[in-house]
């Protein structure tokens, strides 16, 4: 095993080009466990922790360009306003120690369906900034996840940043685990209201081979909201609409039975989370949200 320590982004790209099998490591949350438990012996470890750019973010008019290694702790503390869904998701990541070191780049790189950031990124709308010595490209988040623990990155590419649309409305995130802290998602759900485009976006984690959106549910809800004039009249969403939305979200799942939960439970729980997060965000949109908003 070789340990590569590029001092700059350019050096990192060059190293990745030269050694496409090199495994990037930043927070170490996934990579070090695989090494400690002898699940993986990469030829090269490519340490990204010396590249300061990756730990910075820029807030633009439409989006936040979030460096791949910005720790979850920073996201949950400093980006609650711009990225409320991702901030909530960040708060559910593992433990304070891991949130201090892990970032979204790692979640994307591993592309585990259980990665906590994915549903929030899907719901908010995001693009992954991937770069290689050949150039930079922006991969829409919807195209990023290509299979179980597989993503759209080319072997010579590294994730530099994620461009996440700034929230233009309320966002929520829920995750089910069988413990009250420090738990891997049995399943997770992200929801973002986009009043400017009068759309709703969703993200589902751990309930399909990849993180997915519940597109049929979104389309149903978008139409129902439009039809009822909800965006303008600010009425309470009728229980039947919420229920159908929830059912469609559950239907978007393609889960498995595993040691963390049954497929049937995952479908059920995604439905419950969909209904609740819709209620929370919609009540927040209506401006009557004090009692429904969680704090921690």
């Amino acid at each position, binding site marked *: *095993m*070789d*340990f590569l*320590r590029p001092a700059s982004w350019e050096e990192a790209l060059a190293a990745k080009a030269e050694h496409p099998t090199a495994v990037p*490591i930043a*927070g*170490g*949350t996934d*990579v*070090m*466990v695989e*090494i*400690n*438990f002898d699940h993986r*012996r990469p030829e090269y*470890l490519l*340490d990204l*922790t010396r590249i300061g750019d990756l730990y910075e973010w820029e807030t633009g008019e439409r989006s936040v360009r979030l460096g791949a290694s910005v720790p979850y702790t920073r996201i949950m503390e400093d980006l609650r306003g711009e990225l409320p869904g991702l901030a909530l998701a960040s708060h559910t990541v*593992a*433990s*304070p*120690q*891991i949130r*201090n*070191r892990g970032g979204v780049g790692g979640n994307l790189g591993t592309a585990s369906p259980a990665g906590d950031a994915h549903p929030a990124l899907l719901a908010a709308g995001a693009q992954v900034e991937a770069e290689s010595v050949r150039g930079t490209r922006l991969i829409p988040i919807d195209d990023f996840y290509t299979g179980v623990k597989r993503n759209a990155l080319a072997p010579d590419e590294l994730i530099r940043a994620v461009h996440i649309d700034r929230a233009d409305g309320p966002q929520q995130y829920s995750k089910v685990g069988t413990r*009250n*802290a*420090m738990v891997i998602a049995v399943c997770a759900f992200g929801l973002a209201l986009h009043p400017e485009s009068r759309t709703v976006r969703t993200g589902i984690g751990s309930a399909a081979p990849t993180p997915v959106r519940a597109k049929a549910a979104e389309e149903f809800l978008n139409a129902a909201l439009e039809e009822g004039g909800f965006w303008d009249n600010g009425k309470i969403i009728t229980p039947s609409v919420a229920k159908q939305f929830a059912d469609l979200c559950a239907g978007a799942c393609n889960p498995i039975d595993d040691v963390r939960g049954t497929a049937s439970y995952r479908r059920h729980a995604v439905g419950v989370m969909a209904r609740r997060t819709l209620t929370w965000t919609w009540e927040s949109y209506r401006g009557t949200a004090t009692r429904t908003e969680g704090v*921690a």
Partner: protein
Amino acid sequence: MRVNFTVNGRPQEADDVWEGESLLYVLRERLGLPGSKNACEQGECGSCTVRLDGVPVCSCLVAAGQVEGREVVTVEGLADHAKRRTEQGGCGTGSCGTSLDAAQRRQPPGAADSHTGEGTELAPIQQAFIDAGAVQCGFCTPGLLVAADDMLERNPNPTDADIREALSGNLCRCTGYEKIMDAVRLAAARQGEAV
């Protein structure tokens, strides 16, 4: 490979490090600092918690090569760390206080045992763990101390929920956490008294 970094204020050099070694392994097996504990080596238990450039992290998830040139504080350096903080008149928030003396003045009854290591200078959180009965087998203790000390540095007046959240990455199997809660409350109270 060779790794140079600072541990508890002292420059350290580790040679012949295998690239897959963790910071935890280097501390424990190469630098003679076994205080950070190897309970899970998968970031799930917090017993290996150290401060890396001031930030609490699981040292089992830090590759040895990543600490080149960095600063690490382990449980072995916690008393010094707390003392320096006190001497500098507080932490980043400026309100961390001079709790060490207060904590050491309060000797609970019956503590005068030949094996209690009298004379060892302790950080307030360390003393509070002893006084509150927060130590049983003690294997989780070093990680909890580093995490709790960091929390009290940032949040001198934590609520119970704050304490629980801050320590939610540290598993303990012996105590049921109640005495750990007591210890952190005690350290916070002494810290408050001393300001």
